[in-house]
């Protein structure tokens, strides 16, 4: 039996999910879907920043292109911390392919043009 707080809406139902993926404590159908997802394969989008060179920006914000398994968050963070990218970078550009062999890319979430020469 696992317990979760449902985040589908502000009501915040306390969900119980048993071994057979039977959900109780949910007010609506969406809570059941959420409960099963959290009990069987919880995933999260990871957002962070990476080092960037030749840009007005000091840090480039990035994210995983899709949600990744919750237990891989710290492995993905370690990979992100080792990245340095040179400007220019376009928003949505792939910064690192197939991070931790998860089939997910790390992508930029902001444009970073080249630093203007003075």
């Amino acid at each position, binding site marked *: 039996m696992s317990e979760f*707080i449902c985040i589908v809406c502000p009501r*915040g139902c306390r969900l119980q999910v048993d071994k057979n993926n039977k959900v109780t404590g949910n007010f609506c159908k969406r809570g059941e879907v959420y409960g099963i997802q959290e009990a069987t394969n919880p995933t999260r*989008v990871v957002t962070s920043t990476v080092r960037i060179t030749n840009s*007005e920006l*000091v840090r480039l*914000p990035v994210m995983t292109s899709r949600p990744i398994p919750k237990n891989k968050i*710290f492995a993905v*963070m370690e990979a992100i911390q080792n990245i340095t990218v040179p400007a220019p970078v376009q928003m949505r550009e792939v910064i690192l392919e197939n991070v931790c062999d998860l089939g997910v890319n790390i992508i930029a979430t902001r444009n970073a043009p080249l630093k203007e020469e003075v």
Partner: protein
Amino acid sequence: MKTVDIVVIGGGSAGLAAAISAYDQGIKNILVLEKEPYLGGILLQCIHNGFGLHHFKEELTGPEYAFRYTEELQKRNIDYRLNTMVMDISSDLTLHYANTEEGYVFIQAKAIICATGCSERTRGAINIPGDRPAGILTAGLAQKYMNIDGYQIGKKVFILGSGDIGLIMARRMRLEGADVLGVAEIMPYSNGLNRNLVQCLFDYQIPLYLSHTIKKIIGKTRVEKIVIAKVDEQFQFIEGTEETFEIDTLLLSVGLIPSNPILEKLGVNIHPRTKGPIVDDNLQTSIPGIFACGNSLHVHDLVDFVSEEGAQAGKAAALFVKNQLKTHPPLKVENGKGVSYVLPQYLKSRDTEQFEIRFRVNKPYQNVTLIVKQQNLVIKKMRKAFLFPAEMEVITGKFCDLMENGPVTVEVEDE
């Protein structure tokens, strides 16, 4: 002196939406003034995702949400200035601003939209006793240091206040390798969204101490320890519940206050509860031609509603410039039982069929009825399964149901 139809103060989520909306109403001579070296405001330091679910029907990060709006602004060739501070406004709508390229500039506006955002409450605002060492900072400032400037702020962190920024920063610092020892909240319930409680605290086993606050801060040059303790219903410390944490950083997420120094100086009427200007349903302040929107009007929890409010102010300001803004004798809007504030504070337009009142409740409620009343007559009733102070609510009604005079009140009817 140069004349501009509409000056928008602040190039964040509210200001951008206001400028775009005013332009789309046919006012092309607009100037946006932004103090930071970039447009987008606080969104750019909010690198997490979850923005735009209402407005764009997808989950964006802060910088992406900001980009959607800056792109729209640039498509319309709306003029803007960065690194620019507004120094003064007069009631005849002349405005002084300064930047390093143009120096000190005077311009005449036909309407001004204030979208200056809010500021964080600091340690001084809540009077925490103890030493005054380094390492104590507000959560939003820490977020900027970390996500924009790239600093590691600390390694052993405690967070006071369960507001959303505090929760987001708990996760952010944990992901960057810090030890986040806990979050203390003086109220018996969390002030953050459920989603943030789950995904920022519970995911990382960060404890949440409800009905707890800081009793003492200890540290010579940098913060070394804090003592937290449980409080009773009167927020008095309960003896024997003290707990000590060794930390090097304390983040404060203890509330936001609308920031309106220029409007206050000008004498615009400020509401004691929202701390923002008193406005009518056109978002016009007590000085004709000055409009307010976004977090400088009242603190929002979702940026989508900030954009919506910005667009509303932009439209109204455009109508004002075109001399088409109709006003009727004002009807006062008041907060009744269970409601901590309402917005707007006056209904004046009656151009539209519907009126809309935004409000917050004073504590969590379940299975209650919301009532809009005028002169003790019920105008509208609405059942609500749950209401939370952390979530702004909206109730609408029809102007044709209202009487000529008497304040309109919104209240929560207990069972």
